[in-house]
């Protein structure tokens, strides 16, 4: 709840004002029957038509004011809802950017999308409904009762009694209803889950010949849902009937007691109409409020999910050093060990190596050896468990993440492009780059195919880059990194989707392009790294050997095995 108030705080005045205009509308609803009653009283007593017109004009004025109030309320509510949604979405997204990989994975992409879109939507709706339909209700009750007292004390007390009766009824139903609705929502979710499982798992279900069992499982969720829906329907049917009954008792009581009061000269005949209308309006407002309240638990859940993200303490604390420039080595691993937070074994153990500027360092190893993790640690997507990683001579944890990444160009394993144009994507590497530079970089990245596209640099890129092939995406992703002027270029398995020739051509063009910088290539193919100044062989998270290709062939068993399987066309122990 605190979160809601935090987001509503800037609009405190707007909220109060909205409630006030909504109350104006309610007051209008109560005044119209009052004026109608006056007209009846004039009609039966004074027999003067000008009074009638006077009351008619008053009614028109009240209607206008109430209508204006309601319209203003509609606008203000819509405005408030929009602002609330906007602020919450922005806050959530900005928060997400502070989270580390591991923080974010705990929520998951799918769930984060739901939270940003659906959950906030439901919260917006509930807040607006509360302002529109719950907050004006006490005012409506009090005004109705006061106006009844203005007619006659006895009738005033009668109306208090009626209001109390309706509120009691509403509370009774609300309790039961939130139970049933909670259950209904769970059963609906369950039904969706089971159905979804049946649709997405159709192959597995058929392969295991479980059709009949699945049918039974579905049938059961349908039945549970139907049964609970029926009790929800019955509850509402009961509520409506009870409300109808209360109103009827009201009318009869007003007639009987009102008859006596008129007989005793305390009120007039037209007041019966007014009183009847007051009680109907009070009933209406309370029931509406009750409907909103029934739905609130659902938005509590959504709010909880938002709060969970906003309250998440980022795992990685930003450093303070803004400018790190030096002649030190690009990267230095000093006794680095790393363990995933939920794992029981180290992914990397006691790594020691240095990437020097102007040199190419390669990391090779089987799947699961922890190669990609090295890149992620350098970029500080994770923090090391033990040891230190220095970039440009400074511990990555002491630098701001911005300053750290400013000097690193990274090509991720999974080539991801953003929707827009190719130029837009390249500008992510260098915002002010000219077309000339982009074309040059594209040719270095062996992505000359761009120039043959109809729109060249303006060619459209679909979300995720799905309109390009894996190899094209990878080359564009490489070009994006090359746009950046960096001290360290990291290629995380970035040549895997390229054929042998392109791979070679690219590496050759690359060397002259990034002359003074350090290059870190993470690869599976020996060919890719053959000429590296330094090759690090990883095996199960440990360094099995460091050196040049020829040395490693002689000294490193693991390296020799990899080389054998790849260079001589396989054998009995190939690749394993």
């Amino acid at each position, binding site marked *: 709840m605190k979160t809601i108030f935090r987001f509503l705080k800037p609009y405190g005045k707007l909220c109060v004002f909205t409630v006030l205009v909504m109350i104006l509308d309610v007051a209008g609803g109560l005044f119209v029957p009052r004026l*109608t009653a006056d*007209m*009846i009283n004039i009609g*039966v007593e004074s027999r003067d038509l000008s009074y*009638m017109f006077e009351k*008619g004009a008053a*009614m028109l004025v009240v*209607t206008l004011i109430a*209508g204006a109030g*309601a319209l203003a*309320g509609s*606008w203000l509510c*819509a405005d408030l*809802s*929009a602002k609330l949604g906007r602020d919450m*979405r922005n806050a959530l*997204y900005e928060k997400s*950017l502070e989270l580390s990989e591991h923080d974010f994975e705990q929520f998951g*992409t*799918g769930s984060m*999308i739901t939270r940003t879109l659906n959950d906030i939507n439901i919260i917006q709706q509930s807040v607006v409904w509360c302002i529109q339909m719950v907050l004006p209700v006490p005012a409506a009750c009090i005004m109705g009762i006061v106006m009844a007292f203005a007619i006659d004390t006895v009738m005033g007390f009668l109306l208090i009694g009626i209001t109390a009766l309706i509120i009691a009824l509403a509370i009774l139903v609300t309790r039961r209803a939130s139970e049933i609705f909670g259950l209904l929502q769970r059963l609906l979710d369950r039904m*969706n889950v*089971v159905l*979804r499982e049946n*649709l997405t798992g159709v*192959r*597995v279900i*058929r392969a*295991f010949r*479980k059709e009949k069992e699945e*049918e039974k499982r*579905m049938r059961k969720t349908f039945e549970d849902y*139907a049964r609970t829906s029926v009790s929800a329907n019955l509850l509402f*049917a009961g509520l409506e009937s009870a409300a109808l009954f209360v109103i*009827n008792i009201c009318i*009869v009581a007003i*007639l*009987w007691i009102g*008859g*006596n009061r*008129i*007989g*005793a000269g305390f009120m007039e*005949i037209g007041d019966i*109409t007014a009183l009847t209308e007051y009680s109907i309006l009070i009933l209406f407002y309370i029931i509406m409020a009750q409907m909103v309240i029934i739905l609130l638990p659902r938005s509590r859940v959504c709010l909880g999910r938002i709060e969970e993200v906003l309250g998440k303490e980022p795992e990685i604390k930003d450093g303070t050093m803004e400018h790190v420039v030096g002649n030190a080595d690009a990267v230095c691993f000093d006794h680095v060990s790393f363990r*995933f937070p939920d794992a029981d074994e180290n*992914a990397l153990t006691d790594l020691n190596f240095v990437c020097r500027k102007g040199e190419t360092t390669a990391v090779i190893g*089987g799947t*699961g050896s922890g190669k990609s993790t090295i890149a992620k640690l350098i970029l500080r997507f994770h923090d090391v468990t033990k040891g230190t990683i220095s970039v440009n001579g400074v511990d990555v944890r002491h630098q701001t993440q911005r300053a750290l*990444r400013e000097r690193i160009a*990274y090509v991720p394993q999974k080539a*991801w492009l*953003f929707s827009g144009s190719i130029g837009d994507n390249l500008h992510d590497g260098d915002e002010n780059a000219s077309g000339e530079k982009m074309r040059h970089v594209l040719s270095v990245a062996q992505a000359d195919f761009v120039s043959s596209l109809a729109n060249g640099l303006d060619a459209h890129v679909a979300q995720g880059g799905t309109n390009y092939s*894996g190899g094209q995406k990878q080359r564009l992703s490489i070009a994006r990194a090359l746009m950046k002027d960096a001290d360290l270029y990291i290629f995380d398995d970035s040549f*895997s989707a*390229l054929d042998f020739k392109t791979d070679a051509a690219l590496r050759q063009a690359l060397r002259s392009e990034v002359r003074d910088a350090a290059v870190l290539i993470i690869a599976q193919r020996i060919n890719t790294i053959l000429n590296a100044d330094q090759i690090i062989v990883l095996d199960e998270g440990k360094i099995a050997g460091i050196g040049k290709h020829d040395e490693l062939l002689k000294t490193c068993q693991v390296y020799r095995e990899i080389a054998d399987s790849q260079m001589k*066309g396989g*054998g009995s122990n*190939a690749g*394993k």
Partner: protein
Amino acid sequence: MQENEASVFEDEMEYGVPSNAWRTVRRLWEAMGRQRIRLVIVAVSVLFYTVLSVAAPVYSAGIIDLLWRKIRLAWEEGVTFRVSWNSGGREIVILLVIYTATGILYTFQSFLMASFAERLSLELRTMISRKLNRLPLAFFDNHRTGEVLSRVTNDLDKMAEVLQTGLLKLFTAVGMVVGSLIMMMRFHVGLTLIFLLFTGLSIFFTRFFAAKTLRYASLRQQAVSRVTGQVEEAYSGRTVIRAFNREEKSAGDMREAVEELARTSRNADFMMNAVNPFIRFVNRVGQAAIAVFAGKLLLDGVLTVGTFQAFFQYVYQASEPLTEAAYMVNSLQSSIASVERIFELLDEKEIRKDPDVSRIPENPGEKIAVVGSTGAGKTTLINLLMRFYEVNGGRILLDGTDISLMSYEGLRRHFGMVLQDTWLFEGTIAENIAYGRTDASRDEIVAAAKAARADFFIRTLPRGYDTVLGSDAENISAGQKQLLTIARVMLCNPAVLILDEATSSVDTRTEMEIGKAMQELMKRRTSFVIAHRLSTIVDADLILVMQNGTIIEKGNHRELLQSGGAYADLYNSQFAQ
């Protein structure tokens, strides 16, 4: 509530239009079966209810006139008037009886309807679940999950809601409007015409607003799509955003899209919110006019105190259903369209009844690998093998028997399948492993898990084998899920294995474990492996190289490399991933 993809900002004004409403209604009527009698009883009840509801105001008008007469009489005689059985009390009690009767009828019919619609939708849902099992795989591949899901849940819920409250409302509304108008006419024709004039006005405005609302809603929908795209993209590509220090730019883009959404939803919401107050305003102006005119008639003695207030009660009774008519018709229409979509699903073509031959194949333990680029037809091969799809020509032999002559049951019993798309259901880990053999003992389950290298991580979970997997199994990782599917097959001990060995969504840590578990699984079994990493299939007995839906090369690793064809190219370029 989770990931309800279709319902993000579900639109209030989205009405489907049925293509053949009458036929659908007739079919629905037939589907109701024995429940039809309920509908008839409800219709009769509604008839009485309406008559009583229309009678009540005119009767209460009589009471007020009576009271007013007696009160004036008493005043003239100089005594205090008190309501007693003979002076109005009897009539008030009769009014209470009329009210109570309407109340009872109302309760009766809404209780009858409360289970009517739900039973009908339960009936239809059950029919759909049976239907799903008789649909060919092509249906599932060609329809989006969310789309089918929404038919079974949303469409049927919509139908149930309209049948339950909408139908009842429609019945009563017609009676109320007709009855009220007749009574109003009897009181005063001129007054009734004023009423009709203003009602016409409010109907006109409702329509006007509806059209406008629709336009604003579609503008908002555009903004929603934009934000949705932006959010999906930003969350999926956050590594790149962060690596390139593009957080500020991305947040700026997001702010822009969100701002646009805020602007358009404010307009759309305002239009939605404003309809009711506006209509109320028009109605109230009408009431003011009626009140002045009726006041004059009261002065002239044409109307009495009682009829004056009774006329207003009829105004309320008639105006609500009239202004809501358009909305009611629309929702009725859209629910018929919903029902139509359900029938469409029920009419989908089914797979043909299968013959009943089954034979058990030998167990030669060969490893057959299928390689080729995306779209080469690797998955189709497996689809045909499992008879998820039927061959268009030619035949597939399993140990000499044409599989199209075998029953699905008989055929599939021999196969175990591990797909890249791991599928687990909401239930405990033990239940999931025992999916193919519900009778398996706990020891057998644990043994299978051990063989699949899943035992260790299962034990680290708080409730071990009894840990319940959530709907999207968020409590375990993708790789661990894969291990469970391997254990599942392990427990069934099938003769033939089908493995889709892609492990793209898996972190490197578990990728290795999966590889080992798969090796374990393949021991001593005939296996078909869809290979993504060539290193894992170099030891295969037979490698099939596929391209554009045909097998272009076959042989073992050495032979294929020597022949220097497509496989050799593929191998040299190491088409990993």
